[in-house]
């Protein structure tokens, strides 16, 4: 099947990227197959599990059901862009410390959903955390430790009083 291609330019983990994509290619496929970023996991491939979650302009999206050409001009963050300079992000640290990582298949998506939440709402209630992660399925952990990890991350990210901002 030949499909037309389309040139897109977008920011990927802080770097500008220009790439020709098939008009019917999904973002997850382009990230994984064309750009070699395998950290974005694909499971259901139909927008139901959240394994493929990325951030588009700071909001979560299931990259398996977003056309790649839709991100033209946008800023995309994948799991590869969360740890900066080899230093784990406090969310990543918290997931490890709380035992919230088991098989790890859901983990990249979970971490990005958490990042989107905490970037917009640094002090979420338990109910808000649950709501924010509702679309990310995890069959291993039972979520309890993931919820704890999010609270821990929120705490770590909160500016220490008096430190100014």
């Amino acid at each position, binding site marked *: 099947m030949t499909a037309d291609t389309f040139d897109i330019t977008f920011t990927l983990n802080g770097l500008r990227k220009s790439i020709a994509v098939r008009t019917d290619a999904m973002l997850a496929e382009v990230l994984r197959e064309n750009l070699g970023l395998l*950290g974005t996991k694909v499971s259901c491939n139909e927008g139901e599990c959240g394994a493929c979650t990325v951030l588009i302009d700071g909001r979560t999206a299931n990259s398996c059901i977003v056309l790649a050409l839709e991100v033209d001009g946008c800023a995309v963050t994948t799991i590869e862009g969360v740890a900066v300079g080899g230093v784990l992000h406090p969310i990543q640290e918290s997931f490890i410390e709380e035992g919230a990582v088991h098989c*790890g*298949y859901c983990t990249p998506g979970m971490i990005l959903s958490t990042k989107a939440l905490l970037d917009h709402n640094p002090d979420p209630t338990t109910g808000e955390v649950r709501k924010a*992660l509702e679309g990310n399925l995890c*069959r291993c952990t*039972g979520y309890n430790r993931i919820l704890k990890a999010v609270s821990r991350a929120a705490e770590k990210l909160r500016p220490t009083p008096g430190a100014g901002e």
Partner: protein
Amino acid sequence: MNIVGKNVLRADAAQKVTGTHEFAIDGKVPGMLWARIVRAPLGHARIVTADTAAARAVPGVVSVLTAADLPTPMPLYGSVIADQPLLAVGKCRYYGEPVAVVLADSDEAASLGVARTRIDYEELPAVVTVADALAADAPLVHDATTAPGSNVHKQYEYAWGDVEAAEPACHTIVENTYTFPMIHHFALEPFSVIAWPEAGGVQIKSPVQHPFLLRRVVAECLKLELSKVRVMATSIGGGFGSKGYAKYEPLAAYLAMRTGRPVKISTSLDDAFVTARRLSATVHMKTGFDRDGRILLQKVDADYLMGAYADAAPRITQKASYVSCGPYRIPNLKTVARAIYSNTTPSTAARGFGMPPLNFALETQMQMAAKSLGIDPVEIRLRNLVKRGEQLVPGDIPADGEWSEGLRRCADMIGWNDPLPPGTGRGISIGIKNPIPGSVSNALVKLHADNSLTVAVGTSEMGQGACTVLAQIASEELGIPMDRITMIMGDTAAVPFDVATAGSRSTVTMGNAVQSACKDVVRQLEEMAKELGLIAPGEKLQINGGMMSDRQNSLSFNDIFTRYFSKTQGEVVGRGLYKGEVVAGHPLGGLSDFWEVIFIAVKAKVDPATGKVSILKMINVSDIGKAINPLHCKSQEEGGAMMGLGHALMEQMIYDQKGRLRNGSPLDYRIPTTMDVPWEMDSSLVENQDGAGPFGAKGIGESGAITAGAAIAAAVSDATGVFFKDLPITSERVWAALSAEKV
């Protein structure tokens, strides 16, 4: 202890949180062919014609194969009996069965080839329920099962005492039929395998729990020597039993050998629903109690519905029904369990290995008896729970814990005697299971010249944390820091034999093997030290934290190593073996290594207007002997319990009469999300160092899934006064039951 018992952070976690951890689905091999599968659209049908011309015409498609293109007789595979064909021959026996395979240079071409393949079928009547399968004129799933002319593959019986004679003495008899639905594992990582030909044999990369079992099954199927099949188990993105036994690997291996090229079979998450499921069951249970709530007898008829092929299902039926007594003292028991074929997804191992249906039935029986005898549900369990050292299943190991301790703690933690607001209820239950009896684990550890260590084991890392826990055991034994230990796992060409990553066995059985391999290293170091004259012969030695000391000297292991070899060569290779107790004539082949016991208590609220059940609080307490890593133990059990919550409240695979799966996708088959997590959830570990594993450890990991459902059911009945005998307890079912009550 330095490292055992500590919440050591998971060794593979940094990779997992950065997305750099590799899964099989991410893998590519140069020159690789992509394979996609054409699947049967009906549960039972004759395959009339196959038209593959259009598929073969797709650019990039290399070949399209049906059974007609494969050898006759068709190679069959299976771990218990080899009854599953690489591709369906003549007829398909379940919806989604592989009927043809398309090989192409790209995944897109292979997928398009699948869409263009036309196969015509002639529908046959399908068997999708126990009742269908047992009907007098039932269509037969297989022409010749072990009971010809029937869908019953096998029947297993256990009995002790005299059930009939005990009946007159009973004050109360509770007798019910329970149903437990078909459930899918729902691992997030889809099935994916790469196989490639190699030196007259084949290599396979697959996220498989039991690499050595897979090696055997592939070797038998393709008539190869074991040494010609190399299985490399990749890190598993969720297994829960679904990735234990051979699935797509035999086909991939066959295709690789046939084409002479690497072949990757990829599937989707939807495909997983037609690849593996848990056994469903109908359990009829009759339990007799005396006036004080002591069990006098129990009669069980358990009909386990297997899928279209045996997979591990007969063994599951046999093994689960062996412990139909639960953790209780039952003087008179008779259990008959049948493994029955149907035209549904092949059923395989799943967290709890057949225990959940029996546990749900038995614990509900206890609940009903407590109510009708006016005895507190905790108290009735305490009266029947076997004591430490007391026999449970005659002839097997006795109770290896004081289980009342865990039950009491669990009750305390939920606030058993606190007043309950209206509309809420509390429930408690006990799960029990045995690991794989008489099983073998080998381990190899290699101490290097720089005092780092390689540990080679056949255990697979499936998220349970084996790579961390086994390294902790080695670290403790040899005093080598965790970051100097490298785990090599699941590669049959690189590690010694292990039977399976299953049954919550690895910490105990492989843990013992690793521990004894480390002790073997120490023994060799001791000999070296003696040979070098560094320690006096006959001296009593202190071994601790990588040091060996007699009264005069204290030597580090590395000191001995480098003096014996040098700083640039040599290796101390330690071998470890654990072999469970094999008993001739034992129905399961041998004795249990330990009993895996968990207590779960639940507080639930039921909305009578909608039937919605909300779990307010859930407590897990595990009798674990010794937690090598308490944090991971607790989070494992919570994961299991949440899976059990899903089974209890929402999950079921639904088939229509044509044997078509109607909800085989994550959109239609709901598993718990963050919104379903109990509002309070806490876990605790009973640690009395009384297990068969290293440092007194017992296994953990499956049990949450075994009994969470029973505890939830008990809480719901406490809240509503209605006993639910069919899972899942959906809002509709609760609402209907409450509405019926009102009429």
